[in-house]
């Protein structure tokens, strides 16, 4: 088990070594980079906004319903909604969701390219296939991730306002007061820094699983599943360390 983990980690490092090299043709790299940013990032904005809106709304309702007490200030629901969205949801939980969407996409795309010999065709042409295929994915997701984090936080807060204005759960003024109370700008940066680590995991780990597929379509499916499970576990582990480190 330990031997297998170390072997996999070693192979992953070797692949990353090949990936982080100077692209053969910058023009082709930029083309791929923009394409991957759109495919992995821009195409995920919809799902991120949708989930963030509802989670923001639900957190606000839960806080209002369960913490309400004469001893608690009226702004506490807004305050906790903001802190949860900013500190955990918009970085960690959103990245867990993206690990499923983006991770399986990357692993199955590269896996299919491997089994249909498209990666071999690149190698025969003298192209560094790892650099050409994986580097734009990693850099593309790293670039777009802060945008997703900010959008997610903002949409969560809009969701909370939705409960106040539409659901009349609490007066909007109380919510605004809570959202503005004791705001620490560092928390936003912390969220973005954490998301950068997670973006690297989400793009590089599935790339490894997809790129190293052997066999046929069944193995592509297995690689896709392994990629999602491994990147999710790694996100959870690194979340613990990063939170400790950055808090």
């Amino acid at each position, binding site marked *: 088990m330990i031997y297998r983990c170390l072997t996999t980690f070693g192979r992953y490092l070797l692949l990353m070594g090949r990936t982080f090299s100077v692209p053969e043709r910058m023009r082709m790299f930029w083309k791929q980079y923009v394409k991957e940013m759109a495919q992995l990032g821009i195409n995920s904005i919809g799902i991120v906004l949708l989930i963030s809106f509802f989670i923001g709304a639900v957190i606000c309702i839960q806080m209002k319903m369960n913490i309400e007490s004469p001893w608690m200030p009226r702004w506490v629901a807004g305050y906790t909604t903001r802190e949860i969205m900013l500190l955990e949801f918009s970085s960690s939980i959103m990245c867990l969701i993206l690990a499923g969407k983006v991770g399986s996409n990357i692993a199955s795309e590269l896996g299919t390219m491997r089994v249909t*010999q498209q990666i071999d065709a690149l*190698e025969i042409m003298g192209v*560094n296939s790892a650099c050409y295929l994986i580097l734009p994915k990693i850099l593309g997701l790293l670039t777009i991730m802060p945008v997703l984090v900010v959008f997610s936080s903002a949409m969560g807060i809009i969701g909370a306002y939705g409960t106040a204005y539409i659901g009349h759960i609490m007066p909007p003024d109380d919510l605004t007061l809570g959202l503005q109370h004791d705001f620490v700008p560092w928390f936003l940066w912390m969220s973005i820094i954490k998301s950068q680590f997670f973006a690297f995991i989400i793009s590089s780990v599935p790339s490894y699983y997809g790129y190293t597929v052997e066999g046929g379509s069944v193995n592509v499916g297995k690689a896709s599943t392994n990629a999602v499970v491994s990147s999710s576990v790694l996100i959870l582990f690194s979340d613990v360390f990063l939170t400790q480190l950055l808090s």
Partner: protein
Amino acid sequence: MLKNISTVFEDGITNLIIGQSGSGKTVLMKNLVGLLEPTSGQVLYDGRDFVGMSKQEKVQMRREMGMIFQSAALFDSLTVLENVMFPLDMFSSMTFRERQRRAQECLERVNLTEDAHRKYPGEISGGMQKRVAIARAIVLQPKYLFCDEPNSGLDPKTSLVIDELLHSITHEYKMTTIINTHDMNSVMGIGENILFIFEGQKEWQGVSADIMQSTNQRLTDFIFASDLLKEMRQAVVKT
């Protein structure tokens, strides 16, 4: 597993590697193009040892190679024209118009009409995909062309078209072409130098004209597997 294979593939002609499924043809080809590293021995290209080359030298060397895979291996996300332009985009200093013109020339050479240029690989037939793969392989005018079972999955008529195309392009571009096949039409039709592999070892080498007269039992068992071919051979031997 390959053992004791020592052979020369001649310049400017169509060389064939034949053998049963699992005999080691694809492994041999992967060793030739560097997708696999032999545990011992040498692969020499005009005297240059490919196995002993540095990574950078191998990359340079690979630009002199073109390859057509069994599955065509076209890039799904690119159109036919973009697939053929890809090697030019990567390695040439031509302008966009020049690259486009060169890719169109190659597509015309393999008889693909302009309607197909904007289509994606998934939208064209297997035979057309193979022709696109040929166009992509020759776009940089390689010195060496490798084809791994180019007729696999094609009907007999389309197979003949592909064979004829490979043969004529080999002579036109003065390339050294090496084809892995177990298609008997290819063997008899375009094989100018034939290497027969049996269980990972070189069993026989010669030209197609020699096959009819060959006394090598394994070769004749492989080539004349069907009753019809056996009868044909007997007729040739009698005359």
